[in-house]
């Protein structure tokens, strides 16, 4: 073992820190560079991102609420995300999109599906269907503008969605009513992730524009308490609207720097075009990286070969047994293999935490499926390229040193 460690140490020293770093970088790059380049140069194309596109029907309902997120972790996270991606940002594990506004605020946009809204029914306390008149006029569905809950439900009215306390909430759309993010003790709580089978207790103590949601049971783990300070200030429903209408609405929203309105088809088109752009970017990246990696590896291998050949001969002259040589190599290769893997994983995790990778990878198995094989191929090339070197050096003999000296 001592001999093995000694040989390993000499091999490592011989490779040199710089060479090792370069070598590892190539391997790490094969994992991450594609991601990085893609994110860096294509994110401008991403305006809309529909993670659960297949679950959505033929139109998108955009519930735009203006939430002032202040002094909380999510604001920080959003700020980071907004700074990194000056387009729309999708938060992890949600269907919410965030738009940076000109005045620094963040607007979130929730997407809901037709069946959900139909299921919600949106009835008032008298059981009348409200503000959801699915009448079609010139392909234009009615739009809610500045609809506030206080207009829908009188203060103190029972919530029509709630059958009674402790009964399951039938619909997951309660967040629709309480408008996204709720501030509670400087922590922002998002209710749209509420499970359909959640139970509500003493829900909603409404006074003015402030809605208090007292207790939610069986949501996530145990009892949780929330206080809702958010107000729906703007709800936009779009279903098959006319182009002119879309344009006017879009212009209006754009002029107020709120965000963009689009039908699902537009979202889908944008999504597909983004996909296409990303794929092209991947392809160009790969075509660039592959030959560069191969050329770099050949050069690196040539240098390594000469250095290691001499090392092998000298150590053999000094009495190095073959087993120590092979074990040292195995140890070295294991470390070469392990380090970039760990580094790559770490880098990926960091990128995810910074919300850089996540928006592009969430819900895109095809893209990941495209990336991983390429990464693995490059990584394998890196790894296998060392083997011929080992094979050649295996035959490096100390006698070469003597011949060299004799010359």
């Amino acid at each position, binding site marked *: 073992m001592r001999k093995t460690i*000694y040989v390993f140490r000499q091999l490592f*020293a011989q490779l040199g820190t710089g060479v090792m770093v370069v070598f590892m970088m190539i391997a790490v790059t094969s994992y991450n560079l594609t991601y990085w380049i893609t994110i860096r140069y294509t994110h401008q194309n991403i305006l809309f991102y529909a993670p659960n596109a297949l679950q959505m029907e033929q139109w998108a309902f955009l519930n735009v609420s203006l939430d002032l997120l202040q002094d909380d972790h999510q604001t920080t996270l959003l700020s980071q995300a907004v700074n990194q991606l000056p387009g729309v940002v999708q938060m992890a594990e949600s269907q919410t999109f965030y738009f940076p506004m000109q005045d620094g605020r963040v607007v979130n946009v929730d997407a809901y599906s037709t069946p959900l809204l139909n299921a919600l029914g949106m009835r008032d306390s008298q059981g009348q269907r409200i503000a959801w008149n699915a009448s079609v006029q010139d392909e234009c569905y009615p739009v809610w503008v500045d609809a506030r809950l206080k207009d829908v439900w009188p203060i103190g009215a029972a919530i029509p969605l709630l059958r009674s306390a402790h009964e399951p909430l039938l619909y997951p759309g309660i967040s629709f009513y309480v408008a996204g993010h709720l501030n509670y003790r400087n922590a922002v709580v998002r209710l749209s992730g509420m499970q359909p089978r959640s139970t509500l207790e003493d829900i909603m103590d409404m006074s003015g524009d402030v809605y208090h949601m007292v207790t939610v049971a069986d949501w996530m783990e145990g009892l949780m308490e929330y206080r809702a300070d958010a107000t729906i200030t703007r709800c936009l429903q779009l279903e098959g609207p006319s182009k002119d209408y879309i344009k006017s609405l879009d212009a209006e929203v754009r002029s107020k720097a709120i965000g963009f309105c689009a039908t699902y088809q537009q979202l889908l088109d944008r999504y597909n075009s983004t996909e296409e752009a990303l794929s092209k970017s991947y392809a160009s990246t790969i075509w660039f990286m592959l030959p560069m990696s191969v050329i770099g590896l050949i050069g690196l291998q040539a240098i390594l070969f000469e250095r290691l050949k001499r090392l092998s001969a*000298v*150590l053999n002259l*000094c*009495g190095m047994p073959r087993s120590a040589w092979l074990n040292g190599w195995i140890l070295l290769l294991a470390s070469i293999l392990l380090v970039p893997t760990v580094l790559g994983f770490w880098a990926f995790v960091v990128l995810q935490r910074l919300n850089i990778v996540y928006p592009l990878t969430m819900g895109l198995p095809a893209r990941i499926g495209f990336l991983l094989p390429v990464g693995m191929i490059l990584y394998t090339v890196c790894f296998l390229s060392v083997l011929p070197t080992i094979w050649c050096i295996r035959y490096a003999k*100390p006698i070469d040193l*003597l011949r060299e*000296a004799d010359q």
Partner: protein
Amino acid sequence: MKTLRLINIEKTYNPGREWAVPALRGISYTFYAGKSYALMGVSGSGKTTLLNVIGGLDFPTNGQCLWDGQDMTGLSDSQRASIRAKQIGFVLQNYGLVEDLSALDNCIAPAVFAGDTMRKARHKAICAMEQMHIPELARRPVKRMSGGQKQRVAIARALINQPG
């Protein structure tokens, strides 16, 4: 007294071929420990070939090379490597050092391969370098040494296991 005995050593390069080159023909001699020997000859006379055979770096075509009665030609690679580590010290004309490593790292190699612990090997290497009056060069990479200093390092490495 330890001996190195050569019995009818023959070495032919490319044997059986038209361009076969006989380098050694029937060399028989006995070397005794503690004595100095000089091997002299014109270029191409087989000096290096003989040293290779003696050092266990090359096999003779015929004959035996007995290190203290033990035939080198019948040993495996590992066994010959072990003998090289314990009983032979090499000082090459071009020193045969690893340029990027320090003098100390170069010197401890034979001791490590002879089975010493790293601490003991390091101690022996320092002693050998003191013997050669170069202890201050221990941490210096060989590539930053003069020719004379390299030679001393090579000698220190050769002496570390007290060969012979």
